[in-house]
């Protein structure tokens, strides 16, 4: 999975720490600049303090084709309030200075391309970021990102889906560093009441292709989902439910939901 063995993956280390404690890693998402930059930092730190192992911060983008209504509304609001892409480095630095969680940035590709893939990578590494999750970049188009992520020691997390062929899963697993993002369902981000029947197959396919860490995202919103998926996956990714909590109840609500998701509220 990791061609350059000298690079220590921050997200892999965080997931392995969770494994050593006998639980799946909890990866939590929130959009940058919603409702403002300071709130993003505070909410992320609250997540880390309540059991999140990896924090995923999304860059608001004008054309988020993989996002459902809740995350769209949050990122649209952040953009309307004047969010600038360069703030992401301030946010990442703000989080990493206050907690030990690995911080991944989730971004559609054009903002990275616009800044310059190498420049973006340099600044992300400088801010203490772990790497990037790229929902609309497939390894086939990622030559520039391969070079920059190797140069700056960043994780690169690509997605696999229920529709991915075994050949594509193999290629994607080999391209990833840190973990593989297994999309549990054909669709966009958003809370769903049941875990999709396709989930297990996507995780198994990644493991069979040699992925040491396969984490599940899309439609995961409840503690029982975490437990169910955690039985076979290495980590679970929760987004929409936390974004809704942040919108409704601010940082305390995010802290409470994260504690519930991680099981800390019962510990």
């Amino acid at each position, binding site marked *: 999975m990791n061609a350059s063995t000298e690079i220590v993956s921050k997200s892999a280390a965080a997931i392995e720490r969770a494994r050593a404690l006998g639980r799946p890693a909890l990866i939590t998402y929130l959009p940058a600049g919603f409702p403002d930059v300071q709130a993003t930092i505070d909410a992320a730190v609250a997540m880390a303090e309540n059991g999140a192992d990896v924090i995923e911060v999304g860059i608001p*983008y004008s054309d988020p084709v993989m996002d459902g209504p809740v995350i769209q509304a949050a990122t649209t609001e952040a953009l309307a309030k004047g969010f600038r892409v360069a703030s992401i480095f301030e946010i990442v630095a703000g989080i990493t200075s206050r907690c030990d969680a690995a911080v991944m940035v989730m971004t559609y590709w054009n*903002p*990275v391309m616009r800044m310059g893939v190498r420049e973006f990578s340099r600044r992300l590494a400088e801010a203490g970021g772990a790497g990037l999750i790229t929902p*609309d970049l497939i390894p086939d188009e990622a030559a520039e990102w391969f070079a920059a992520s190797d140069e700056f020691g960043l994780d690169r997390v690509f997605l696999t*889906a229920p*529709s*991915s062929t075994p050949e594509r899963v193999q290629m994607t697993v080999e391209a990833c560093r840190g973990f593989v993002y297994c999309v549990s369902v*054909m669709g*966009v981000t958003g809370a769903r009441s049941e875990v999709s029947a396709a989930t297990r197959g996507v995780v198994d396919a990644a493991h069979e292709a040699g992925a040491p860490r396969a984490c599940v995202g899309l439609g995961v919103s409840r503690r029982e989902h975490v437990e169910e998926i955690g039985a076979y996956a290495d980590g679970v990714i929760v987004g929409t439910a936390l974004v809704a909590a942040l919108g409704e109840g601010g940082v305390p609500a995010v802290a409470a939901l994260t504690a519930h998701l991680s099981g800390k509220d019962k510990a």
Partner: protein
Amino acid sequence: MTTQSPLPDGAADRFLAGEGLRHAPGPYFGEYGGRWMPESLIAALDQLEDTFEKAKADPEFEAEFTDLLLNYANRPSLLTEAKRFAEHAGGVRVFLKREDLNHTGSHKINNVLGQALLAKRMGKTRLIAETGAGQHGVASATAAALFGMECVVYMGEEDTRRQALNVARMELLGATVVPVTAGSRTLKDAINEALRDWVTNVEHTHYLLGTAAGAHPFPAMVRYFHEVIGDEAREQMLAQAGRLPDAVCACVGGGSNAIGIFHGFLDDRDVALYGLEAGGDGVETGRHAATITLGLPGVLHGARTYLMQDEDGQTIESHSISAGLDYPGVGPEHSYLNDIGRATYEPITDTEAMDALRLLSRTEGIIPAIESSHALAGALKVGQRLAERARAEGVDPSEKIVLVSLSGRGDKDMGTAGAWFGLIDEDTARKGE
């Protein structure tokens, strides 16, 4: 034209070696194109590409497609010489490729029939489409009705209000029109919403993208279905004028009619190609859709191409009186043809386009679509430049020929045109359009 567009090294070599630019297969056109798409959709793009490649090589598909074009879409479309209009173009001859005479009133029907045939081959029973002004939505709903398929059309909420009559048309044809309230509520957001639907329902749904943009294989495939425009026009020019035109003018939003007509002349080095972009209020105002003229390369909706984007890579909202050209991206093959100098892209303002719309109406008795009026306005400028050069060389301007892609008819635009020229009040315009 007596002077050629300069071609840079690689392209010039291929061109001179006789390899030519026609039938570029994708996924890349130079550094443009590709598949900047979520992994979830890659399997569907692979299936579409595979189905398309097999269909192209299958005489039965060719026969089916041709039969639909001839006996349903009303092809071949006419080539009409516009003699009175040409008097305003410096005295050169002007010919119109009459895509406005196709069934549903524009070139869009070529592509929807081709893609609906492919959807049938893939066993897909549901078509989804995006639309701005409603022309592609109407064409998609038409194909769905003909093939007995379910059809859902995504349309910006603002456009559904401005184009109430086209919404009614689509619904009468049996389609469901979904108003899009996300983002800027325009064409680009309708595409986003269609992509979200596709990723959710891809098993039985085909996304019938309406222009030669997006992820591979869409740009090469949509061009293939529109190549008939250029192929017919080339033959008709030779038959009617005994020679090829000096210049070809077509409007460019995503650029499907332009790439279709350009394709017929790509390897004819003496034929200059002009893509006319929507200059809106004027490119200096920032309110325009002149993507190639003022945009920068980036990725949107699956392709690397010129984009209207800000310093952060956020898409900038485009503006044009023509809903069909109101798109902040452009097909990747156009980006490539621009960079290698094979085609020239120029902005036309709303005012220039509307003046050309009225001029063609009054000189030829043809009311063109506002989109196509951008091509007509470009033809007036190109014709005047050609005429000037001809005179300088001691040649009669009437020996020069400009071919215009008249991509659609203007009936759909009567609300906008009526209000623009003060023929009807704004309120009536909104209801009637």
